[in-house]
């Protein structure tokens, strides 16, 4: 009996206390700051990687109705499920990176700093009025609402495009710069988990003898010339197209013209830099000419039909001379050099 009563009492007490906390929060008396912080902290501990999911109610509670020198800042990620299908916005990727920054922040901080910054997200379909209140009408959008920010439509806390260009690392830099808190080096989960790695290693070890057996018999794909040849041509194409440059510098395929946003810029003037599409186009021209040469001298001569031979030859000649002209022209344009022969001075 006593046990049951005790239980009931306990739950009643809990109910009262939680009710009172909600009441105190909504009335926003000065002592409620720490309560709000505590509540955010408890919400955080229940959400995945520490990103709190807020709705209109939460926004009004933690940001609007609370008095302005708030003891905490909120980094808010604006999400919209209906736009996830638009890959060029990269919403899901950015959201993942956002989660990483949050998790790293949690892992690297403890004590008082931990409750100075909270990572939150709101979703468009469920909190449209908040989007309006923030004045957000384009995504992706990440906004830092510092403790002193009074008006939500104040856009000074907005994270620039450049700040999430390098994903989590640059987001963390933005946060560190604005809040003077430390996030620390981003801890990405390993590409393969330990279990996966061990399974893969085991499979490789098991498969090795069989592979070697086949190798000794000489009947693998590796003995196919064509495969090696196409691989070789691919590596060649990959290198001369400057793909490594694009990867290292993270160059976009093309740029938008600054003066005319509808126009796209595919070719960048100035040596030592290139855009993605530009490299591939030129690499393609290189490869075509080389392969045509090989084709004409090695395959075409075996064709019996004279007219076909003539036609293909003509096409090959025209195409390669056009390609060479294009590349030379582009190179001169890009580097700004005017390459010319030197004639004997008496000829001039």
């Amino acid at each position, binding site marked *: 009996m006593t046990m049951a009563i005790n239980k009931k009492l306990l739950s009643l007490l809990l109910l009262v206390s939680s009710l009172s906390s909600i009441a105190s929060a909504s009335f926003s008396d000065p002592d409620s700051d720490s309560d709000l912080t505590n509540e955010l902290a408890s919400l955080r501990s229940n959400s995945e990687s520490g990103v709190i999911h807020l709705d209109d109610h939460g926004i009004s509670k933690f940001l609007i109705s609370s008095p302005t020198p708030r003891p905490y800042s909120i980094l808010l990620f604006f999400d919209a499920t209906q736009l996830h299908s638009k890959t060029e916005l990269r919403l899901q990727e950015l959201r993942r990176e956002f989660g990483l920054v949050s998790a790293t922040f949690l892992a690297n901080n403890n004590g008082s700093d931990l409750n100075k910054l909270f990572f939150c997200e709101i979703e468009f379909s469920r909190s449209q009025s908040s989007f309006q209140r923030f004045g957000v009408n384009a995504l992706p959008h990440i906004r830092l609402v510092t403790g002193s920010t009074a008006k939500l439509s104040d856009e000074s806390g907005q994270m620039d495009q450049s700040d999430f260009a390098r994903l989590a690392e640059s987001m963390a830099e933005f946060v560190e710069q604005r809040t003077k808190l430390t996030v620390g080096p981003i801890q990405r989960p390993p590409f393969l988990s330990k279990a996966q790695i061990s399974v893969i290693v085991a499979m490789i070890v098991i498969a090795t003898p069989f592979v070697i057996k086949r190798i000794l018999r000489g009947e693998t794909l590796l003995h196919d010339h064509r495969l090696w040849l196409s691989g070789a041509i691919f590596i060649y194409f990959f290198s001369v197209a400057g793909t490594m440059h694009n990867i290292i510098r993270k160059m976009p395929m093309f740029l938008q013209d600054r003066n005319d946003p509808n126009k796209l810029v595919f070719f960048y003037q100035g040596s030592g830099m290139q855009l993605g599409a530009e490299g591939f186009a030129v690499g393609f021209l290189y490869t075509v000419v080389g392969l045509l040469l090989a084709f004409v001298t090695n395959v075409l001569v075996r064709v019996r039909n004279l007219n076909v031979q003539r036609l293909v030859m003509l096409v090959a*000649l025209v195409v390669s001379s056009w390609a060479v002209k294009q590349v030379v022209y582009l190179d001169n344009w890009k580097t700004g050099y005017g390459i010319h022969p030197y004639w004997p001075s008496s000829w001039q």
Partner: protein
Amino acid sequence: MAAKKASPDLVNSSFSFKSLKLKTKQQELLLRVSILGLVYVLAFIARLFSVLRYESMIHEFDPYFNYRTTLFLTEKGFYEFWNWFDSESWYPLGRIIGGTLYPGLMVTAALIYWTLRFLRFFVHIREVCVLTAPFFASNTTLVAYFFGKEIWDTGAGLVAAALIAICPGYISRSVAGSYDNEAVAIFALLLTFYLFVKAVKTGSLSWALGSAFGYFYMVSAWGGYVFIINLVPLYVLVLLITGRYSMRLYVAYNCMYILGMLLAMQIRFVGFQHVQSGEHMAAMGVFLLMQVFYFLDWVKHQLNDTKLFQTFLRITVTSAILVGGIALGVGTASGYISPWTGRFYSLLDPTYAKDHIPIIASVSEHQPTAWSSFMFDYHILLFLFPAGLYFCFKRLSDATIFIVMYGLTSLYFAGVMVRLILVATPAVCLISAIAVSATVKNLTSLLRTKQKVPQTGSTKGVGSSKSSSKVTLDQSQPFHKNGAIALLVGVFYLLSRYAIHCTWVTSEAYSSPSIVLAARGAHGNRIIFDDYREAYYWLRQNTPTDAKVMSWWDYGYQITAMGNRTVIVDNNTWNNTHIATVGRAMSSYEDEAYDIMRSLDVNYVLVVFGGVTGYSSDDINKFLWMVRIGGGVYPVIKEPDYLVNGEFRVDKGASPKMLNCLMYKLCYYRFGELVTEYGKPTGYDRARGVEIGNKDIKLEHLEEAYTTSNWIVRIYRVKPPTNRL
């Protein structure tokens, strides 16, 4: 008399007409030798543009160190050189020169110098140094000829020699005056590869021995030897996988690896790294794998039962791989095998350097390559390369596999770093030469059979079996002659464009010593800026001999070699902290910088400034790297402090920290009084095209000591501390 003399000649010639076969062979030999001789000379004189346009001098930065050490070597002898502790650089640390350089280049130049002296040619060591690179480039053409002959035929060899003689990718590092390690290293690299391919082809110990010595020369000359010690095992591995294992390969690789390793360990800078560092482990692994293959072959020979052999095979291979893996793991974990160095790692994962090692990422020749650089350095070779690949695959042999692998790996690395275009150049030339030679040969043989000259068939020699079979196919087709002529004209047109391109590029782009700058004036005349040497000679003549000069590390070698003064840091970037200290001083406020300079006993500070002349690679443009490198060690330096909205500015909108840091003050001191361009306000920076933001600069602890005539180099004296009150 004359008639009498002429007659035996007549007889001779009519006699030789009869024995035509011998005569054509001799003719061919004569042609070949004279072409090679011409190419040899061409390779040398094409590299003399820099001497003609400027003067006989050492170029760039690193060559000044090499020159200084060579001078030391010829004056003091090898023993002193080997044990040299240099107290004039990296003050106050100093540097052990003998143990931290590749001595191949210096020893080579000294040997040439001593030989010339012995033959009573009294030349200055500087001339020898200036001309070492062209001389070795000429030798490289010879190696390219033999290599081409080995992998295809003599025609390809000749074309390869001609192509490599003027290829801009190679010329960029081997003009007269660029006295750098690469000058001899490319020769050594190609020689090693050639000898190794020859060894694999013949299975002869002497060729393998030769390649081991070639490798030794390469190790002594350049750090790029790591490429050889990884490419060769990779090649052997591919041969093993594709079932091309043979006794020849076994002999060639084992001899080359073991001897080469023992020899390489004699170079102090390499030493035990060769058996301990991760970069060399692939070679050792393949060496062990070779033994397993040999052992299996032997067991197979002993066991007649195939089933028994299969099970045996499975057990051995699995256990061998397991043991190898465990050994590698234990070695790495216990620290016996050192992990890969940053430079090597950044080749495999190219984004690594950018994020982790600013000192590597900051160097302009370590930038990734855009397509225009490939075009600039290879021109039509790029078009010919895929065709050459195709031909190689058509006629697959051990040698062509090697050249294909060399070409592809080096081309990939060239895409990662601009400077590695140099390593890829010989391979690209060779493969393109195969394309040219095979195409031209096919086409001309088509033309010749139409003329129905029966003798021509015999001149073809070896490689004609394929083309002659084609000829018989096409004999009844009159079009082909026209087509062949059109194609030939096309090929020769391309080749002539190549020659024009190379000549222009060599003369205009790659012959600049970069210590003397040239620009075109308003009337098309050449203006020479000789400010660097002006400044260094000023240092040499006007400062105390024990003065310490602080500058960014780029100029360290030049200051010690030409100014003969002690520097804090130089281009041998062995101590990152020391460089970061200088970077920190440059990016701090003057009073903070003064404390750092006092602690390093700095007497003079030297900065390079292009605001007056529009010279863009000056210290202000390099400044962000100083901040990054300084900030990498001293977190008080933060890059965002010097940026405004992520932008680097020097005008009024620049960040306050930027406007008051030491580098800014030293560069722009008194610049605000100067009108640089007509119609622009005072203090207009021509390199960045803006009016500077801080025109009223006062120096407290430093005073201007010397500014060169075009303001490119500015030297400041560090004042002694004021009296204590």
